[in-house]
C-alpha cells in the first residue's frame, strides 16, 4: 500500500513538474552568449518571464521586462531609452530605463500592474514609439509581460519583430 501511494505521489509530482511546452521553449533559448554573465545584460531580446517567473529554483520574478532596439533592421540596443508603462489603474506612468544591452525589467516590489498595460517607448534621442495595442492577459498568461513573447524576430504575421524606437527610414513604428 505504501509503495502504491509512493508511486501515485511520484506520478503526480512528475505530471506537475514536467511541462514539455515550457521545456521546449526554454531549450529554444539556447545557452548564454559567450562572455556575458547572468545578470541585467544577459539574453537581450529573449522572453525574460519564461525564466523570471518566480517559480521555485528559477530567477527572481519580473512583472514586465524586455529589450528595446534602435531600429527593426539591426540589433543595436537603444541604450538609455525610457519605457513608460500605464496600467489599468494608473493616472501616471511607471517609468523604466534601458541598460547597455537595451534591457529593462521590473520586479513585483517595484511594479505590480493591473492589466491591461499601455506602453510608450522614448529613444535616447527623443524618438517616441507608441504601442497602439495592449498588453493583456492579466499577468496570468505566461510569459505575458515579456515583450519578446510577441515581439520576436523575424517579423511576420504572428510578430511585429523586436521592439524598436524608429523605423529603418527614421519614421515612427506603427
Amino acid at each position, binding site marked *: 500500500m505504501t509503495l502504491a501511494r509512493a508511486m501515485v505521489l511520484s506520478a503526480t509530482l512528475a505530471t506537475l513538474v514536467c511541462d514539455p511546452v515550457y521545456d521546449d521553449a526554454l531549450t529554444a533559448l539556447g545557452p548564454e552568449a559567450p562572455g556575458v554573465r547572468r545578470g541585467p545584460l544577459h539574453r537581450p531580446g529573449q522572453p525574460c518571464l519564461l525564466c523570471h517567473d518566480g517559480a521555485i529554483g528559477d530567477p527572481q520574478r519580473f512583472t514586465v521586462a524586455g529589450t528595446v532596439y534602435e531600429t527593426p533592421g539591426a540589433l543595436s540596443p537603444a541604450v538609455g531609452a525610457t519605457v513608460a508603462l500605464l496600467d489599468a489603474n494608473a493616472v501616471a506612468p511607471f517609468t523604466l530605463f534601458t541598460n547597455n544591452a537595451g534591457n529593462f525589467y521590473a520586479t513585483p516590489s517595484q511594479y505590480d500592474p493591473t492589466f491591461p498595460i499601455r506602453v510608450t517607448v522614448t529613444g535616447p534621442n527623443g524618438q517616441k514609439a507608441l504601442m497602439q495595442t495592449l*498588453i493583456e*492577459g*492579466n499577468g496570468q498568461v505566461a510569459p505575458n509581460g515579456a515583450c519578446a*513573447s510577441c515581439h520576436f524576430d523575424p517579423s511576420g504575421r*504572428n510578430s511585429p519583430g523586436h521592439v524598436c524606437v524608429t523605423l529603418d527610414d527614421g519614421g515612427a513604428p506603427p
Partner: protein
Amino acid sequence: MRNQLVLLGCFAAFVGCSTPPANGRFVQLALPDRASFGPVAELLDVRCGSLDCHGTVARNLRLFGSAGLRWSANDRPLVPLCDTQTEVDQDYESVVGLEPEVLDAVVAAGGANAERLTVVRKARGTEAHKGGKIWAAGDSSDTCLTSWLASSASASACADGLQSVLLNGFSNPLIQCAAQP
C-alpha cells in the same frame, strides 16, 4: 455492492466514450448579424486577440486581426492598420462556431440571457479564464458584444470600449478601424 460499483464504472465508461451519431447535425437557424460584426471583431481583436492570448492558432477561440495574428502571410501586426475583411470573416466563424446550439438559442431570444455563452462569461470573468476579467457586465465593451448578439452591434459602444483602454483614447488609430463599416 462491489458488483454494483463495477457496473456503474462500466456504464460511466460507456457513456464517457460514446460519440454523437455520425449523421448528427445541428443547423443554426438563428445567427448573429454578420454585417455589423466588423466593430465587434476589432474589439475582440484588441482585447482578446493579442499574440500570446487568442491571437494564436493554439486556441479554440482563434482570432485574426491587425492587433494580433494576421490572416495573410504578407501582412504584419498593424500593417495594414485595420482588420481585413477576411480576418473579420474568420473571426465571425470562430465566435459563431464556439457553442452553436447555445448561440442559436441566445440569438433566437433576441440576446436574452447572453451569459449562457462562454464567450460572454469568460470576458466578464464570471467563468474561469486564464486571461482574467476583461470587461464588466454592462460596460461599453460588454454592450458591444451583447448588442451584436441581440440584433445589431452598437458601433459606438465598440468604439467606446476601445477608447477606454487604448493609448490616447479616441486618437488611437485603431478606434478609426472600429468605426469603419
